[in-house]
């Protein structure tokens, strides 16, 4: 089936990058894998429509963040993450990943999505707004607040982390 072949090609090429994006959104590997699977499944089901999109990668971003924001699975995983002793007890300067993920986990889901899309995926403000279904002003405000929260949470450890 041609559609299946096209989908397979896209999914195979994108899945690991999606996984890392999902990892930043969810904060742990299991939840990230679930999110990628749910996203790919959505894309597969709508593939005839998806494939007409101007930018498949951007469409994938949008589908993933909306899946992340929509789902109660996301909420559950976040709670599970908050409850993880290693996540809660991570020393700010001991492990970069734990520290940053713990700081990210303190952001509301939409603000975290803004951080990942803007600063990791390098989407523009307009592209981020389109992906999240909100205004550019909202993205700017959330981005600014999120940076302030991360700056506060990481504090002096940020510079240690950054220099290391």
């Amino acid at each position, binding site marked *: 089936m041609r559609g299946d072949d096209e*989908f*397979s090609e896209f999914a*195979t090429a994108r899945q690991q990058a999606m996984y*890392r994006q999902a990892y*930043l959104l969810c904060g742990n590997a299991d939840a990230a894998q679930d999110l*990628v699977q749910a996203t790919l*499944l959505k894309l597969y089901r709508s593939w005839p429509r998806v494939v007409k999109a101007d930018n498949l990668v951007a469409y994938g971003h949008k589908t993933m963040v909306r899946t992340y924001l929509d789902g109660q*699975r996301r909420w559950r995983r976040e709670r599970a993450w908050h409850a993880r002793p290693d996540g809660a007890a991570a020393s700010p300067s001991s492990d970069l990943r734990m520290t940053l993920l713990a700081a990210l986990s303190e952001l509301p889901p939409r603000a975290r999505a803004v951080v990942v899309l803007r600063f990791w995926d*390098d989407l523009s403000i307009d592209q981020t707004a389109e992906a999240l279904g909100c205004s550019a002003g909202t993205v700017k405000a959330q981005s600014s607040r999120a940076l302030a929260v991360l700056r506060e949470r990481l504090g002096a450890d940020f510079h240690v982390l*950054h220099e290391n």
Partner: protein
Amino acid sequence: MSGTELRELLDRAVAPVDDMPDLVPRVLAAGRSSVRRRRAVTTGLGAVAGVVATVGVANVVWGPVVEWPSAGPAASPSPSSVSSSETPPPGADDPAFRAFKGRMAAALEDALPARLGVVRSAASAPGYTAASAQGTFPITFRLDPWGMAQPTRCPVEGQPSDSDAAVVSCLEQRLPNGQLASAFHELASGGTVLPRVETVIDGKWLQLYLFAYQESPRKVPSITDRQLISVLADRKVAALVQEWSVHPEWQIG
């Protein structure tokens, strides 16, 4: 911290993350199966579209079953925890209704906390769900036709309460459709605390009981008011409830 610095940190945070297994074969298999199911459901719905009755809607109960992941074989239903309705809805044998129940079970499973386990429609019970005493509980929807402008409000100190029972906790929140929803944990007979959430849909009073309606199950799983509201706020559940509410043949009169 600048955006560039944050970008560097994010890059470094995910750099040591190992690749995940190839998900594509799994997604393809699940996707093909899902598309086949969706086509079957669409065909079924089309077949019954012409027989939707326009009778008035009355009291409605409908219930999939929540099964605990760790539960053993289901025990015999306890008389104290069996839903009271005996009459199957007129549409119980309708393939479209069965398909609908399957979709609702899947949506509820997604919307409910994971620890509550697998949600299944009560296919063997044409009407309503029997709940075992050990780990299997009914989920009950109830729809009253009587016009309601808003759900039961949370009690306010010093003012008469809308609720007949002692309210242990209550939370009000607007759903994405703008309607107010209120979630309660109320003290029932035997000291059991029963969770429920309610809202108004097209002027009808919708209540979702977890995990019993007017009964005292021996065990009620833990769920917060916020989680209860999030079930009604879930897009899939909300769409299915809307679909169900306009099918009187799927409801008990």
